[in-house]
């Protein structure tokens, strides 16, 4: 870990401890951290379309909480309501005990927000973007100047400090947006699809930075449709589809509950998968026939494969893998394309 990142985390930890002086004694006698976000029957309708349909959840301090769902599931709408920039149609919502509709500025002062679309000031230089954003919180320049340098180091953008934002790559812009969201040392960070559109290298750098923030005690609220991202970063998540919560739990618990331990993937050729699927009935816990392959959900994939060959069937390729969040996601939200 670089020096800048270390000191940033230290500051974050100290800031959190100082803002919550009872926490250290609290943790020894009461393991339940306070709830920072609470939603009850939260609903948002646009005309006839119900984007968020009666959802309820609580997020305790320090948790990394994910909203997972296909496009149009209502994730971003939920984030906007939490961020106090979209009014709910009904239900109750509090952030740090405050209603974002009546206390928008007070709620937003607690938050760092990374929106789905970068909205950096393209006409300002990289470092100036951080300083200007900090001014919106009324932070003095004596704090903002060194803080901007610290955050640029954290985001690995120190050598780009005086570059124009236009000149940055997509990954750099995303890191700058994250750095900007940290300028006020927020205890809650809202990340709306933070890595969409980035290449694998850029995603891994971002995950590393987000994980460090999580380690430092920042509460992360994250929307994503990348399953690996959710597995990497989320302590707990809700799977949302058509505005409703389909399942809730830790990634491991969701896999346990909604999928088997392993999955056997078989390919017999596009023409034959459907017909052979019938002959595979009874093997494993569940069978799914797709146009390009057959999936057998089983506790023991190798044993399932032996049963397949014992029935005289010879797949072109076979693969045994651990069940993933993606299996859970597709089971809960279906395989039909959402536009």
């Amino acid at each position: 870990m670089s020096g800048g990142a270390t000191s940033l985390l230290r500051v974050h930890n100290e800031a959190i401890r100082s803002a919550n002086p009872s926490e250290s004694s609290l943790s020894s006698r009461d393991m339940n951290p306070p709830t920072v976000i609470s939603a009850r029957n939260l609903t948002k309708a646009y005309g006839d379309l119900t984007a968020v349909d009666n959802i309820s959840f609580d997020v305790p301090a320090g948790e990394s909480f994910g909203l997972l769902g296909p496009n149009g599931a209502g994730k971003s709408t939920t984030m906007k309501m939490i961020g106090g920039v979209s009014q709910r149609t009904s239900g109750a919502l509090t952030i740090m005990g405050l209603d974002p509709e009546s206390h928008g500025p007070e709620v937003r002062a607690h938050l760092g927000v990374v929106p789905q679309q970068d909205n950096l000031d393209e006409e300002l230089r990289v470092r100036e973007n951080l300083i200007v954003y900090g001014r919106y919180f009324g932070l003095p320049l004596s704090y903002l100047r060194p803080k901007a340098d610290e955050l640029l180091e954290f985001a690995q953008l120190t050598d780009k400090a005086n570059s124009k934002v236009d000149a940055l790559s997509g990954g750099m812009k995303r890191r700058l947006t994250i750095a900007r969201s940290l300028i006020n040392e927020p205890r809650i960070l809202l990340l709306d699809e933070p890595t969409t559109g980035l290449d694998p290298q850029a995603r891994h750098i971002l995950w590393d930075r987000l994980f460090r923030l999580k380690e430092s005690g920042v509460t992360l609220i994250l929307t994503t449709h990348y399953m690996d991202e959710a597995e990497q970063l989320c302590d707990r998540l809700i799977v949302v589809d058509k505005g409703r919560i389909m399942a809730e739990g830790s990634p491991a618990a969701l896999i346990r509950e909604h999928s088997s331990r392993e999955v056997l993937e078989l390919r017999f050729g596009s023409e034959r998968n459907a017909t052979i699927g019938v002959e595979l009935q009874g093997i494993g816990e569940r069978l799914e026939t797709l146009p390009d392959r057959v999936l057998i959900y089983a506790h023991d994939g190798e044993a399932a494969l032996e049963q397949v060959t014992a029935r005289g069937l010879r797949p072109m390729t076979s693969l045994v893998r651990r069940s993933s969040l993606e299996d859970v996601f597709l089971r809960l939200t279906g395989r039909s394309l959402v536009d």
Partner: protein
Amino acid sequence: MIRRQLTDQANNPSTTPAPPLRAHSPEVSAARARRWGAFFYAEQVLRVMRNYGWSVVLYSVGQPVAYLFAMGVGLASLVDANSESAFGGVSYLEFVAPALLVSAAVMTASGEFSYPIMDGFKWRRVFYGPHASPLIPQQIASGHIMASSLRFLLQSVVYFVVVALFGASPSPWGWVSAIVATVAALSFGLPLMAYAASITQDKGQFALVQRFVVMPLFLFSGTFFPLDSLPIAVRWIGWISPVWHGTELGRVFTYGMDQDPLLTITHVVFLLATATVGWVLVRRQFVKRMGS
């Protein structure tokens, strides 16, 4: 984490750690933003303007020099030779200078309050960044207006200095015309800003505004000839034009044009009323577009 801190210190025994940077509490942020938010946003707009500061300065100086030379010196040599009394006993240069000053501010306003608003909501969505901070939409609107007003005022002051150097402002109250021009710019610009904030699809509306609103107002607002020399059928363009009201008011200050005090008051009321209504509509439109 504590262990990491100790390790860091052990590795650097000679350096005394700098006191950690601390942001003030969210409560302080919110209170400051509630009070000063519009100024915080105005600061951002001014920082962005600073990036094209040189073009603002060159435009502010170059435009009056070019216009005053062309109209006030070139055209004036013809006009003054033919109609000595047509402009209330003053030279054509003196007659046209306050009109050019006001028109220039209004034209700058037509730029500042059109495309940048579309940019804020749609193209680069720059208004949504500050809206995720403690700022509220009304403050973002007001900040943009305040920073733009400062630009109009500076530009108008520079314009007035050039007018004075051309000897076209004999009255000691001539400098007030720079303030008049700024108010005229807001009188025209704020209703335009409210309209710009209501546009969700760019279908070339601003080009139409330039051609069918800004240009006619520039040409038929008593700018180059007195409004009453136009046929009565088109004089209404001047009556509803911030350029005409601003120009007539400017003339009172730059060369003491003889004017019915009631008409002077009407000009002031018109400019302030349209600017105020525009500001209210802008705030309403920003809230409608962005939420609370």
